[in-house]
């Protein structure tokens, strides 16, 4: 955490993505949410936003850095042998393994 603060102070890289996501979250909180971990196998969806579950949510931050940004199509390519945790998804040209708790931060349109 302290690395992050030092880094921000020194380099002036504003990291405001999560606040953007949060405002979207407030707009949409009353609507039906469709998180990525509910997407069936081999089905596709489009990312609406990444939901930060708490302030300074590093996982949400990293998801955005990995390309889970509004408008990106995403596809579920595999489930784990014992249920749906973790899942493998494809976004852009890349495939990621996500735990269900991580995937539920990604809200689809």
């Amino acid at each position, binding site marked *: 955490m302290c690395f992050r603060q030092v880094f921000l102070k020194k380099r002036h890289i*504003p990291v405001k993505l999560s606040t953007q996501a949060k405002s979207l979250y407030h707009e949409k909180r009353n609507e039906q949410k469709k998180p990525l971990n509910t997407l069936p196998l081999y089905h596709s969806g489009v990312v609406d936003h990444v939901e930060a579950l708490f302030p300074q949510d590093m996982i949400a*931050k990293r998801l955005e850095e990995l*390309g889970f*940004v509004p408008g990106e199509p995403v596809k579920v390519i595999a489930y784990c042998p014992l249920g749906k945790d*973790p899942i*493998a998804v494809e976004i852009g040209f890349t495939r990621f393994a996500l735990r269900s708790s991580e995937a539920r931060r990604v809200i689809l349109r």
Partner: protein
Amino acid sequence: MVGDVMAKPLRIALVGNPNCGKTALFNQLTGSRQKVANYAGVTVERKSGYLVTPHGRKLQVLDLPGTYSLLATSPDEAVTRDVCMGRYKGEPAPDLLICVVAATNLRLHLRFLLELLQLGRPLVVVLNMVDVLEKYGIRIDVPRLQSELGVPVVTTVGVRNGGAKNLITLLDEMMPQQGVLHLPKLNSSVILENSSCVHDRVRKILETCVTRDRPLAVKLEDVLDRWVLHPIWGMIILSFLLFIMFQAVFSWAQPFMDMLQDSINRLGILVSTLIPEGPLRGLVVDGVIGGAGTVVVFLPQILILFLWILALEESGYLPRAAFLLDCFMGCAGLGGRSFIPLLSSFACAVPGIMATRTIQHTRDRIVTILIAPLMTCSARLPIYALLIGAFIPNKSVIGVFNLQGLVLFVLYIVGILSAFIVARLLKKGGEERFLLMELPHYHWPSLRNLLLGLWQRAKIFLSRVGTIIVSLSIILWALSSFPAPPSGSTGTALEWSLAGRIGHILVPIFSPIGFNWQICVALIVGLAAREVAVGALGTVYAIAASENDISGSLIPLLSAQWGLATAFSLLAWYVYAPQCLSTLAVIRRETGSWRMVMITVVYLFALAYIAAFLVYRITGLFMG
């Protein structure tokens, strides 16, 4: 003044996302002039090497751990961040950053590149893997990309011989003389903008610079992942690969091991004829050749194990195996990310423990470090192979399985199960853990990288044999040869020697688990490294038997002198015992605490003693 500048090579650092082909490129640039350095007191394994350009300029090249972002979430990412920003302890920022991006994955990799550009340091972009673009039907407008980014862009193919030519040419142009760097002036539209719109920026760059000739055909990943990640087929493929791996270690290595054993025997005989009878001959033949030679024989097995692990790693399969095993690892309270460090611990716990740096979750990381020594490392192979060879008949079970191979497999399984139980006990409560793991594109492992990797392993192994094992063998030889027995004494010379006496002192502690004094001697010197124990037994019994063919004579000697219970007990001991100083040292370095080392030592020795005791008693009961 000028001379000073000329003496110092510029330092360039390769940075980029994971799986961008950085390491292959590094191997291209530095060839075999590289070293894997473990800087003391720092939790990082870094590779550095030297590159001499066609114009004779010398450069030091650093290979930094791959990262997605400068906002580090794990220790290895923090290293990359600190080096890039010049905040790394006792080291100035590199003179030039070389940002490697995979041409096939621009959308993801450009984001990190834009983040790096904002550091405002000298930077060159390397567009790697351009050979695959053709296959995907993608065209990238490099001059356009260059003007968009405002920094030089060159294309490379990291896996092809001479694939880094463009980069080397550029580096040459940028250095009119040694130690001076000139960045080419570009009409830069350098973007120092808000990072919240980095993704928009990336999209814009992609729109202007990348064109697609034809719609994307079915990718290799689509086909392979349907099978490899399939809940049932995937598990079958994984078990098959691991099973073949263990069989290969035994069966493929055998001819090479026989050859090595043969040449070592011949060397022993040759040396005996050259050196006159006396202490010197004893030192060389029994001490050095008997001790170290016994260990060198196991090099082929170790290399085959590493060949498998390297090939699985290079092909992009390992993260997929981690994905399949994640839920099982979850039962042990660990994340799938612990899988790769644990798998490399089968080769050696030292790189395994260092690989835990990719685990963000601190407690997961500590637990993984604690159980990594339970994975059967290659240094145990010599001991297992020796004991199995001496006590397990070489016959087949149910027609197909070799009984010796089966016992070896069981020993591995026992280690794994114990590790899971220990992890389960250490981890209570279900905090949230990261997985977020990239499943990289499949590609054929490049022969060059495999060979370089094997060469490095062989070098490490042989230098260990050459230093620790030879010197310990010599010390042991001296301890077991002096003082000479008084004339007219009964009993062997060994029992009169210092080693014999030390062994006899320890016997009361170890006799409940069936160890005789020779084993006690081997255990003491084997504290430094496991395989030393084999050399030690070789030396101890060689002095007793005065034979040249150590391992060959050791097997019948052991099976004649030890009971089955003792052999099994020793096997059980070695499943657990933390007899490896390098592992303990790396635990100290990675965790930064002696407490962890103490915990590891105490719990592993306790397990070893209990397991050996049980095995000894139970086998004793059954054998009457």
